């Protein structure tokens, strides 16, 4: 189940980054990630046939390019902190909105919450309100020219058996 979820999550994230910001990402099978303190993270929770939280951590360098490309800025033009936070939240929202029907099909209905930025001075799970003992059901690391993007899907329980992954 985890490998299938990760394949779906990887493809949705790669497609979203390309269409949204013309950024080309590749799935990284290695376990070595970037130091957490060089990344910015955001999360969004959802409820429906299954519920959970999607967390996205992204290198600061990737986030700067993501925000600049979404805004269509020219080389050398600076993004603001608000732009970067907004770009990360919107990207998480779009990935989550595309991920859930990719997992469960378009016949079911999910309610997606308001995305937020996780506090930099807190451990990721605590910041996202995820129980300490809960491990991610899927984790994907993507490599981009500017750095990395890591996605974690935390589910509250199992995916119902009547949902068959594509």
């Amino acid at each position, binding site marked *: 189940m985890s490998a299938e979820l990760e394949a779906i999550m990887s493809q949705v994230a790669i497609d979203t980054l390309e269409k949204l910001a013309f950024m080309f990402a590749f799935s990284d099978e290695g376990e070595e990630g970037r130091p957490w303190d060089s990344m910015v993270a955001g999360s969004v929770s959802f409820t429906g046939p299954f519920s959970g939280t999607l967390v996205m951590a992204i290198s600061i360098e990737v986030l700067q390019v993501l925000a600049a490309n979404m805004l269509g800025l020219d080389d050398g033009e600076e993004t603001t902190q608000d*732009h970067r936070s*907004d770009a990360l939240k*919107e990207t998480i929202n*779009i990935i989550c*909105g*595309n991920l859930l029907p990719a997992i469960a099909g378009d016949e079911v209905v999910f309610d997606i919450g308001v995305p937020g930025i996780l506090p930099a001075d807190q451990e990721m799970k605590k910041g996202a309100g995820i129980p300490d003992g809960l491990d991610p059901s899927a984790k994907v690391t993507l490599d981009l020219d500017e750095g990395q993007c890591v996605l974690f899907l935390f589910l509250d329980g199992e995916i119902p058996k009547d949902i068959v992954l594509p």
Partner: protein
Amino acid sequence: MAINILIVDDSGVMRSMIIRTLRMTEVPLGEIHQAGNGREGLDILDEQWIDLAIVDINMPVMNGEEMIDRMHEDPEMNGIPVIVVSTEGSKARIERLEHKGAVFIHKPFTAEIVCDTINSILGLGENDER
């Protein structure tokens, strides 16, 4: 004829993306107004002449579907074409919005889809010489 457009989305970056996309199309743009939620969107519709509303669904204060419902209740706003730009993936919800007269564009979108949808909904370009 220049088209006055209202963009309603709680993400300022997404509103900027939509405006940039609109400027890449051949749609004759007039004034572009922005709102961060459905309530603000209705306030602008009350005060400004708007030819087309581009509306997100998942927003705080008032979501896009409620805004569309309120527009239908107001004879002054009832005929304004609405394009919903959203990540919504549920077929039932998309069909419900379409039954309310909205045209749906899925995020992330391309400039071509936005252009084609606006041309179609406003009947632009049908008599253009090519």
